[in-house]
Each structure stands twice: as C-alpha cells, then as structure tokens.
C-alpha cells in the first residue's frame, strides 16, 4: 500500500518559489491501476518522482508498504528504486548504446543475477511484449511503439510492486498508444502490479481503475469519479 500524507515539494526558480506538489495526501491499494490526469506542468511528474524515490519531499511523508521512503538513506532509496519500482517514461529513456535485450536486462543485472537467469527472464519479457526478433537491435533501429514496449519490459523485469508510467503514450500515435496501454493493462493484470499512470490523455486514463485530477500541485478526484460517488 502506498500512502502519501501532506506531501509538499517546492522548486525555486530565481526569486520565485513554485509549489510543484502542494499538500497532497493519497492512498493507493496494492494492484490498483491509478491514473493521475492533468495538464503539462501541473505537478504529475514531480509526484511520480517522489513516489518513485527519484526525489524527496520538502515536507510530508510517503510510505510504501509501511516503510517511509522519504526518510531512507540514499543507499536504501536506490535499492528501493531498483527492487520495488519500475518506471516508464514518455520518451522511453532507453540507453542508446545498449541493445534492446541489454536495456531490458539492465535492472535485473543490477540485482546481481547470473547471466543465465538474466537471459531467461529477458526472453520471457521480450516474448510478453512481442519483441523477440528485435532483441539485438539498438534503440535507434526500432520504432517509438517498440521502444515503449522495451521500456515496459525493462520496468517489469525486477517484478516490481509498483510501476510508474509518465505519459507513456504521449510520444506515440493513437493506435500505437492504444497497443502500449493494452500491453500495460494486460501485464498489470498478470503480475498484480500497482500501476500509477500520469497522463493528460483521457483515452489512456480509461485503462485505470481509479482516476485522479491534478491541478497546480493539488490532487482531487475527477468529475467523473465525483459523479459516481
């Protein structure tokens, strides 16, 4: 379970202080597929970064399965990112000098797995995302949709409890975006992983089981969700 309590994150730009996340409290149950919707710059990515342990809040607490990650030492936080979190970015963020298979293998390799274990797991995941024939290609040799599927496989290789997807369809055409979302939903279902999706696309958000709206750093249920309640 993920619990955020009164989380605030502020950035200073010159003389200006901007609250990217403003007093956010949120609880996400294991296995939930949550969509955080909002315009660019509303603070969605900052919030994902905080939950994913990429950054620390100025105040408030973030707990994952009862452990307060905002208080972890850097070594522990790094281990948390490695073992418990998978991240999918809008622009895929694959390592250009690594092949598709190596990109997928990287987080697993960081866990100190053997070559044999890595190979087996990579093959399994590449098969899941239908990229077996592309495994020796480099990122610049494959399409955007394929790159995002590689990123999904990379995010899932360590069997994380939590996958954070930041605008995963933002850089894809609608058909490919739809395919990617299908893949994510299918894998989320199969692996019982908690998915938090940051998107401004209402189409992508339809795959979520819960939708939240973010504006100027604050979080609220979407109108649709409010109407339902």
């Amino acid at each position, binding site marked *: 379970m993920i619990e955020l309590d009164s989380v605030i994150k502020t*950035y200073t730009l010159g003389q200006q202080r901007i609250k990217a996340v403003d007093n956010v409290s949120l609880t996400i149950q294991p296995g939930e597929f949550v969509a955080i919707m909002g315009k660019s710059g509303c603070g969605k990515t900052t919030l994902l970064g905080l939950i994913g342990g990429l950054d620390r809040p100025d105040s408030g607490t973030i707990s994952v399965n009862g452990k307060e990650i905002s208080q972890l030492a850097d070594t522990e936080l790094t281990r948390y990112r490695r073992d418990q979190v998978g991240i999918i970015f809008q622009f895929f963020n694959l390592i250009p000098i690594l092949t598709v298979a190596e990109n997928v293998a990287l987080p697993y390799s960081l866990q100190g797995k053997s070559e044999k274990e890595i190979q087996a797991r990579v093959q399994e995941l590449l098969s899941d995302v239908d990229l077996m024939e592309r495994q020796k290609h480099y990122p610049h040799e494959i399409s955007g949709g394929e790159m995002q599927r590689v990123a999904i496989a990379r995010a899932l290789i360590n069997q994380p409890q939590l996958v954070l997807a*930041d605008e995963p369809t933002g850089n894809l055409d609608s058909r490919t975006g739809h395919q990617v979302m299908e893949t994510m939903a299918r894998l989320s279902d199969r692996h019982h992983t908690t998915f938090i999706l940051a998107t401004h696309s209402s189409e992508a958000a339809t795959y979520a089981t819960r939708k939240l709206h973010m504006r100027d750093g604050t979080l609220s249920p979407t109108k649709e969700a409010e109407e339902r309640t």
Partner: protein
Amino acid sequence: MMIRLWRWFCLRHLISYKGRAFLCLLGVALGVAVFVGIKTAASSALTSFQDTVTSLAGSTQLQVTGQGNGFPEDLYETVASAEGIRAATPVMEFNVLATAPLDEPLLMLGIDVFSDQDFRQYHFVDSPQGSGAILSFLTEPGAVALTEKFAQRHGLKVNDQLEILSGSKRLTFTLRALLKLKGPAGALEGNVALVDIAVAQEAFDRIGRLHRIDLLLEKEAHIKPVIAHLQKLLPADVRVESPQKRLGRIREMVDAYRLNLLALSLIALFVGIFLVFNAVAFAVSKRRYEIAMLRVLGTQRWQILGLFLGEALVVGLLGALLGVGLGLVMAKLALKAMSQTISELYLLVRAESLSLSPLIILLGAGTALGVALLGGLAPSLEASRTLPSEALYRGSLERRLHMNLGKISLVGVFVLGLGYLCSRQPPVKELPIFGFLAAFLILAGFSFLAPASVPRPFSQPFVGSHRLSDDGVGNVNQHLHTDP
C-alpha cells in the same frame, strides 16, 4: 555485475571515442616514459661508470688527481715516499677517438707497467705470462695494446697501425699486443688502449705531467689521516680521495642532472593527470543521461564511482604498458647523452646496455595508475553524485564549473603568484627545488585559468535541447519553467 556494467557502459565508450582515449593514454604514457626513461638511463650510466671506475682502479685505495692538464710529475716522489704509502703508480688518461673508419671513442691509459702490477692485472692474448708482450711494447715507441674485442670488431691485427684523434691532433700507434677483456681492459666494453706512460706523455705533449697517482696504503695506515697528510704536502688544486669518493662525486653530478629531468617528467605526468581529468570529465558530461538512468534504475553511487574510476584505471594500465615500453626506448636514447656528459666532464663512459630495474618499472607503472586515478577521481565523484531527479539533462558539471568560475580563476591567479614567488627563491643545497616548484605552479595556475578561457556558450547546459525533453523527470523542470 560490475564487470558487465563496465563492459556495457565504459568499454563501449572507450571504443567509440578511440581518439580521445588514445590521446589520454598517450598523456599518461609520455609522463611515465620520461620518468622510466630518465631513471633507467641514469641508473645504467651510473652502473657503467661505477664498473669503469672500479675496473680501472683495481686495488687502488687512494687516488691523487689534478684538474685539467693534471699536475707536475715531481709530486710523484713526494706522494710515493709519504708516510703510510706502500705503493704508488702514475697514470695518464686520455679520451681519444679512433679515426675513421673505426670512429669509436677509446680510453687511452698511460701506465708504468712495473709499478702498475701491484694495482691491476692485465691479461694478454697468446701470452699466458704476458711478459713478452709487455716488454715489446715497452721497448718500442708508438706501441699500443688494444682489447681483443675492439681489434676483432675492426679487423685489426698485431702490427697494424691505429690512428687516433686527440683534440685536433692526429697520432699513429702500432698495435703490438691484444688484451683479454678482463680487469681494467674490461672497462668501457673493451674500448681501452694501453700505452707506456712515457710514450703517452710524449705523444700527447704532456712531458713532466701526470693525470693521476694511484696509491696503496700500509696495512696499519688509516685512510683519513693519510689523506690529510697528503693534502698538506700537495698544492690546493690537487685532490686526494678514494675511488669510491670519486664515484660519489660523479653520482652527485648525475643526480643533479637526473633531478632536472625528473622534474620534467613530473610536469609531463601533471599533463597526463590533466588529460585524464579532461577525458573522464568529458565522459561524465557526455553520459549524464546514462548515469542518471543508471541511478534511476537502482545503481548505487559507489558503483557509478567504480565504473568511472575503472575507466581511468584501464587508461592508466594501458598507459603504464605503453609508457614503460616507450620509457625503455627513451632510456636507450638518453643513455647515450648521459654517457657523453659524464665522459666530457669526468671519465670516458661507454654505457651500451640498459640495466633494467624492476623497481623503476614497477614505480613507473604505479605512477601511471596513480596519475590515472588522480585525474579521474574528481569527475568520477561528480558522476557518483548525480541525482536521478536532477541529472536527466546534460551539462551539470559544466554548470557547476561556471558557477565556480570566478573562484577557480582566483585560485589560478593565486597559484601563479605563488609560482612567481618560488621562481625568485635561491637554490636549496645547489638544487633548484623552488625552480621546479615554480614551473609546476605556473602550469597549475594556467590550468585553473583555462576554464575561464573556454567560450561560455560551448559549455552551457543543454537546457531545452532534445535530450532534456527526452526524459520524464526532466519534464518537471521544463514544465516549471513554463508554468506560472
């Protein structure tokens, strides 16, 4: 795991940027090469000089030496009859050149064969006792004995003529005997010629002069009082010392020479550090995105540090291999120059072979690794400090440098000032320690000023570049720039 990561992230980059890696490796190698080369050459020259002095000295306990043209022959009687002296023999030494087509330096020794027998043993070819040969070249003016090695190399046989050049004077001798490569004849790889002292004095226009008197002491005599006593009997410009002391003087001279060159090698090593720093800093800056992704995916700081230090270490290892190899080539070349300097100032030295010291080679290799690690340390630490949230865009290092540019430049000016002050200081025990320090500080000072001379736009962070927009976390910053 680290090996796999290193192979993926460092080896591939080293291969991709071969030119830069090679330049960096060359910087380290050159520093090490100068270091190994000078040390090896100096040590080889000294060993050769030591062998020469020891071979020529034989059992000599003390030597009376003069300066330049030597000293009057009359002093021989004074010295030989002095208290505590058991035996004395006069010696003349000339550095000459066997003329073309031989074209080789020779140390021509003028000895008194009778008194010399207590000091040195000469072994003649085809004459087990040697007396016949000795007598023959004693009785004939212009007679010379050469080593068998030298004679064979130039196809010279007994009774052949040998023409030599001493200064501008040409002299012709007749080869009357061949010496085995033993005792004093083994000095200088066999480039020794033996003549009667009277023949030498006449041929070289030094009648009534001596270059040296070798001495043996009475059994009960102590060296120091004898030296003091002799020194009182002799003019001030005539020196009495043991062959070892004489060797020590040469060692000091070579040490000073070596120190100068070692200072140069340290400067070369400093340039190596700078090149490694530059290469690793470039790699860190260029791979900012990858490092950030590694951090995002769970790579620990120490692992990032290890990756980049490992890269520097590989450059150091290859630099060490290349540097030691180059150093030995350099030593061979420097050996000739060093031998020439010693020959011109003291005694003909003909060092042909390098005396390889494992310690020097290990020291050179260790220096290469040290240089590489030192150069790579700062940028590697910088890489390890990369935060996953802030570093998904490039240029962080340059930005930090720009932020500290004023301070760095001030340090540069301060270091240059220190360099100037050091350059004004006198030598310490005749060694230009402050001079070397000044050279180093001036180099360091200009290095600190270098970042300020780089055009600013060149090293601006890539804010707004495609790479920044390539990442999700970076979006936060991008969005915040645009949001009110």
